[in-house]
């Protein structure tokens, strides 16, 4: 049984809003009584995803489905796409501009962190069309 569906629009330029979706999802999961470890994993993955949507995607959308067994997250943008997904998944590889690095991001940890904190991660990306990342965190 599906408990809850959430949808968020993420601005492509406004860093001040990045983190709002993950904070709200975290609050929802807390209210629903999910284990702390699950909440932390989901919150970190969504926050990294949000930052990527702002930095690289030109904004996008986040859809979350919460069920007792699994949290499913889809992050989608219509940005430039990722030419080499395997390279992008390497820790330390980054194409982030200097202004993003000055904010403490762009260290090439975003996608590896998302993988680390989720149980399933599928990246679908096409250059010039955009990127969709599908994530699952299982409630163990």
């Amino acid at each position, binding site marked *: 049984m599906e408990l809850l569906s959430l949808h968020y629009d993420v601005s492509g330029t406004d*860093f001040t809003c*990045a983190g709002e979706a993950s904070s709200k999802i975290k609050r929802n999961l807390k209210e629903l009584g999910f284990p702390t470890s699950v909440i932390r994993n989901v919150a970190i993955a969504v*926050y*990294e995803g949000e930052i990527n949507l702002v930095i690289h995607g030109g904004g996008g959308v986040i859809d979350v489905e919460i069920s007792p067994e699994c949290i499913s997250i889809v992050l989608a943008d219509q940005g430039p796409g990722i030419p080499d997904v395997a390279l992008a998944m390497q820790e330390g590889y980054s194409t982030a501009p200097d202004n993003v690095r000055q904010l*403490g*991001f762009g260290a090439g940890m975003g996608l590896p962190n998302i993988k680390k904190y989720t149980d399933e991660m599928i990246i679908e990306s096409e250059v010039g069309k955009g990127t969709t990342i599908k994530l699952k965190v299982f409630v163990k």
Partner: protein
Amino acid sequence: MTVKELQKKLNLQYICNEGLAEEKEVTGCYCGDLLSWVMSKATDGDAWLTVMGNVTSIGVAVLTEVACIILTENAPADADAIKRAEENDVVILGTEKNAYQVAVEISKLI
């Protein structure tokens, strides 16, 4: 120890949310400026020592549930960060000392 007790012992300056310092418990300490790294390593109850006083740092503090942010070496907090911290109950403190000096002092107290 509470953030308020830590503030007094280390002579830290309040930047934001002084009123919440008594209810926040400090149980550890984490030093770092790369936010993705901090997000995955810092734990709840940590005093987070950093020079990153921007709005994205507040997001990380909320997610990790650190006890407070301590901006070291007089690093400033920008206006957006303070506003976001006020909205999310994040206590920010400042000091002229560097992260090593503050961490050493914290390790003697907790």
